[in-house]
Each structure stands twice: as structure tokens, then as C-alpha cells.
């Protein structure tokens, strides 16, 4: 009550009011605080990290135990320390993408968005801040997970044909590429959540885009497949962190460019809907 009564005693025409102001940096700080004040953030990020490291370890261990045996799958036998360590990327992208959807769509499902947009009625800074904050967090977690997974994985497979060290050509690029990929998946998740304003819808489209559509493309005539397939989000993304590229896949740089374009497309759609339609 103290402030309210205090202002009452002052003349009405010249109230001594503090000069608050909304700035981009402050919206960022608010979104940062919002992200870490939810338990689901800690749990899902932990799961993402766990998936990345644990599946890498499992893949490396299995490779180690099967190497040299006659009935080993030839594709699996051609694995490298990098491909084995990054085996968990598929699962980690699910965790980080879903958390991205929750960061935005969760505000709509709970009603929090009304408080958020009443505080920042210009709206777009909220989307940029959410994408930046969560993209950065997903990037850090993804990069950390990739390096940890490789650290353990390369240790397990040392002395086998798959053995590699960080100094090996392309290894560092692959691991950083995996982190960057996971960061951008987080941004895409956040964009899809803001675009669809529904947790279930956002997750469905995310899973479809990253995991189902590549399978469906195989139903197309093969000449089309070769034209379309490399540009799909999941395949372009994979080019970013794969150590070796066959003739159909994009180069890491081109893969990054295509995946950034997909991210920008999703963000653009989200921005359009946020700015144009009622909350």
C-alpha cells in the first residue's frame, strides 16, 4: 500500500513517477527469466542432453561389441566415431523442438500470452526474444551434448576402424554443426508454436517436418526424390553435421543455408500471425 498512498499525497498534475520503459534488452531479460522459472524447461533440457549422450554411448558400445563379427550390418560397420556419437541427435531434436513449441504455444494454452502481450503490446519483440533466448539455450545444450557424446564415444571405439579424434578432418565441424542444428530446431519449434498457437499442433507439425516427411518422400518417383530430398529440413540439417556426404546430399555450408531458410520461413509465418491476428 505504501507506494499507492504515497502518490496520493502528491499533487495530481505532477506525479513523481519513475520512468519505466520497454526495451528490447528488457524483453530478452524477461523471456530469459520466464524460460528458467519453469520446471519443464529443466526437465526437457535434461532429457535432451541425456538422449544425446546416452544414445551416442549405446551406439558406440554396440559398434564396439559387434565389430569383427560376421553378421554385422555393412552400413553399421561403416560408422565413424562421429556418426556413432551423434546417433542421439534424432532424439535430442525431439526434446529440444518440443520445448521450443512449449515456450510459445504454452503461453497460449495457459493464457499467459495475455499478460505477456499486455506488457509488450508491440508484440514482435516477444517473438524475437523467445526465439533468441531459446535458440541460444538449445545451441549451448546441443553443442555441449555433442562434444560430451563424442568424448565418451570416441573413447569407446578407440582402436577400432571407427576411431577418430577431435583433430581429425571435419570432426570439429560436425560436432559444431550438430549443436547449431539443434539450436535451429529449437527456434523452429518456438516458431511453430507461435504460428499454430497450440502445443499439440506445434509438436505434430514439428515431428512431421523432421521425421515423417522424409519417409513419405520415398513414395515419389526416384528422379523427384533426388531433386527434393536434399532440401527437406531434416536432410539439409543432417548435411550440417554429417562427416561424409554422398553425391545426393548437400554440402555442410549449403545444408546450413537451406536449414536457416526453413527456420526463417517458420519465424516469418509466426511473426505474421502474431502481428496480424488477435491474441
Amino acid at each position, binding site marked *: *500500500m*505504501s*507506494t*499507492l*498512498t504515497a*502518490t*496520493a499525497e502528491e499533487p*495530481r498534475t505532477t506525479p513523481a*513517477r*519513475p*520512468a*519505466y*520503459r*520497454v*526495451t528490447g534488452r*528488457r*524483453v530478452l*531479460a*524477461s523471456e530469459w*527469466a*520466464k524460460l528458467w*522459472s*519453469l*520446471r*519443464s524447461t529443466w526437465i526437457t533440457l535434461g532429457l535432451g542432453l541425456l538422449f544425446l549422450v546416452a544414445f551416442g554411448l549405446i551406439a558406440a558400445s554396440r559398434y564396439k561389441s559387434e565389430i569383427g563379427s560376421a553378421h554385422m550390418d555393412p552400413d553399421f560397420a561403416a560408422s565413424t566415431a562421429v556418426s556413432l556419437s551423434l546417433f542421439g541427435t534424432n532424439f535430442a531434436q525431439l526434446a529440444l523442438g518440443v520445448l521450443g513449441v512449449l515456450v510459445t504455444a*504454452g*503461453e497460449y494454452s*495457459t*493464457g*499467459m500470452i*495475455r*499478460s505477456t*502481450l*499486455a*506488457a*509488450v*503490446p*508491440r508484440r514482435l519483440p516477444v517473438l524475437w526474444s523467445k526465439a533468441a533466448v531459446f535458440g541460444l539455450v538449445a545451441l549451448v545444450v546441443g553443442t555441449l551434448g555433442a562434444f560430451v557424446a563424442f568424448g565418451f564415444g570416441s573413447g569407446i571405439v578407440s582402436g577400432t576402424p571407427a576411431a577418430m579424434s577431435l583433430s581429425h578432418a571435419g570432426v570439429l565441424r560436425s560436432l559444431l554443426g550438430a549443436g547449431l542444428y539443434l539450436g535451429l530446431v529449437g527456434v523452429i519449434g518456438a516458431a511453430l508454436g507461435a504460428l499454430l498457437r497450440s502445443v499439440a499442433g506445434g509438436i505434430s507439425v514439428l515431428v512431421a517436418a523432421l521425421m515423417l516427411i522424409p519417409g513419405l518422400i520415398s513414395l515419389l518417383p526416384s528422379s523427384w526424390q533426388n531433386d527434393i530430398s536434399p532440401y527437406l529440413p531434416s536432410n539439409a540439417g543432417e548435411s550440417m553435421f554429417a562427416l561424409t556426404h554422398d553425391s545426393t546430399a548437400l554440402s555442410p555450408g549449403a545444408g546450413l543455408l537451406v536449414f536457416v531458410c526453413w527456420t526463417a520461413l517458420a519465424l516469418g509465418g509466426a511473426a505474421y500471425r502474431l502481428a496480424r491476428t*488477435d*491474441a
Partner: protein
Amino acid sequence: MIDAQRLTKRYGEKTAVDGLDFVVKPGTVTGFLGPNGAGKSTTMRMIVGLDAPTSGSVTVNGHPYARHRAPLQEVGALLEAKSVHPGRSAYQHLRALALTHGIPGGRVDEVIDLAGLGSVAKKRAGAFSLGMGQRLGIAAALLGDPQTVMLDEPVNGLDPEGVLWIRNLLKGLADEGRTVFVSSHLMSEMALVADHLIIVGRGRLLADTTVADLIREAGGDTVKVATQDPARLRDVLAGPGVDVTGRIGSEELQVTGLTAREIGLKAAEHGIALFELSARSVSLEEAFMDLTRDAVEYHGATTGIDTLGRPA
């Protein structure tokens, strides 16, 4: 200060708010009344820019809400109770809002105390009762120390002590010179806090009036008298501005234009025995019901005429 001009919102075929013109002035509590579905919440959402008007405009302290540098300092709004993430604590919720404006942490603690949330501030908002949720919403509304406070159905879910707290809070805010705009569908609640009333029905403005004027327009005060000799009493009371009604053969009369005291004195002067003498003021609730019922009928009629004019 809230200024709405020809404010209109359509959702497809349905017109939720239909050309509202009103001004909410500082220093008083203005009640925003109407039956459910009258467009009150939609109007409030447009005031803080959550919904864009189909046509017309609404400004707060001279500018559209989104143009202000520190919107929370201009208008503090309690919209629907659930504008909070249930997984976040009350403190974290308020802090996240405060950070967008650079509002210091001390102010967050202040509004938590002000709303009586001190003991539950660290608990998840999802575990709050309806009343606690309302208190958190009000704390958020007051966070920016706003010039205009706008509350949508603030007493919903509050216990009697909470209702009393809201009443005193609203009056206090208005006494400090702030603009206070409160919606309700309960006239009885508004009568206790509001000085000014903006009444809407089906998205249209029905009345922009004061509590006293509304009662006067709704038929004023009548006095019920029961007497042994109704015919003689009628003659005695007759005069300019006085209206006496009553059924033939009944001992009861309804008198307007005289107070119960005046009627009693005149009856005593003429030696007429009275059995009952009671002032029956028209309740605001009744006045409100009359007003909105008329509006519904009126709108029904115009819609009929409209459709006749259009090629069906």
C-alpha cells in the same frame, strides 16, 4: 482516461461491440455493466490492444495502448483470471512482467504484499484458488503503478473479505486521482463502488450515467401506503408532481413525488389511519434489468426491420 470512439468489433457475422462511444474519466470509479455476452470483455481486450477493433478506435491517456513507452505504467489490466502460466510462482510471474519495463524488484514485493499474497508468493500459480488467482491478477495490474486501472469482473471467486478489499482498493485508487474502470454483470456490486456507470447490452451503449440518475430515470422512489380510507387519502395527497396509484377496492396505494414522512404527516393532519407506510426505492438491480430487457426487445425489433429491408 480511456476514450472510445465508434468502437466496433465483429467476429464474422457476430457483432460483439457495436459502435461504442464513451469516456472513462480519472478520479472516479466507473462501472462497466452489462449482461453476459454484452461485449464488456471484448471492449477491455481492445483497450489493451489484445484485439484489434474492426472499426473505430480507443485510446488510453491520449494514445493507442501499444504506442506507450511503458504500457504497464499507463494501464494495469486484470483480464480473465487465467492469464498466468500455472507452472510459474506468483513471484516469478510478476518478476517476468516487471523485467520488460525495468520495474525494480522492490515493486514486485510491494504488490505481492498489497494483494495479500505474501505467504503463497513462492508457490506455483496453478495451485492457487480462484480467489488467489484474482489477487495475483490484481497484483499484476498494479505492478506498473498505472494511471488507469481496468479490472474485468474482479470480485469473481473472492470471499467476502476479498470483496471488501477490492471495494476499498478501487475507491482508494480513484481517490488518488486514477482512472478506475471495472466491469461486472452484478449491479448490486457496482452500486457499492461505482460513481459512474457505462451500461452495455449486445455490444451497444445503453446508458452512460451516474448511479443516482439511473435510479431516477428508472421510476424514482415510490412509497407504499396502506390505509383505512384510500379515497380520502388520495384527495389529501393530490398535488403537483404527485402521482398516486392503487387498485379499486384495495387498501394499498403507491405514491411517487412525496416522501414517507410527508405522507405520514398529512395523514395525521387529516386524521386518516395508516396501517403501513414504507419507502420502496427502486433497486439498481431492477433499474438495470429494465434497461437491458428493453434493449434486448429494441434490438430484436430493429433486427427484424433490418432483415425486411435487405433482400433475403
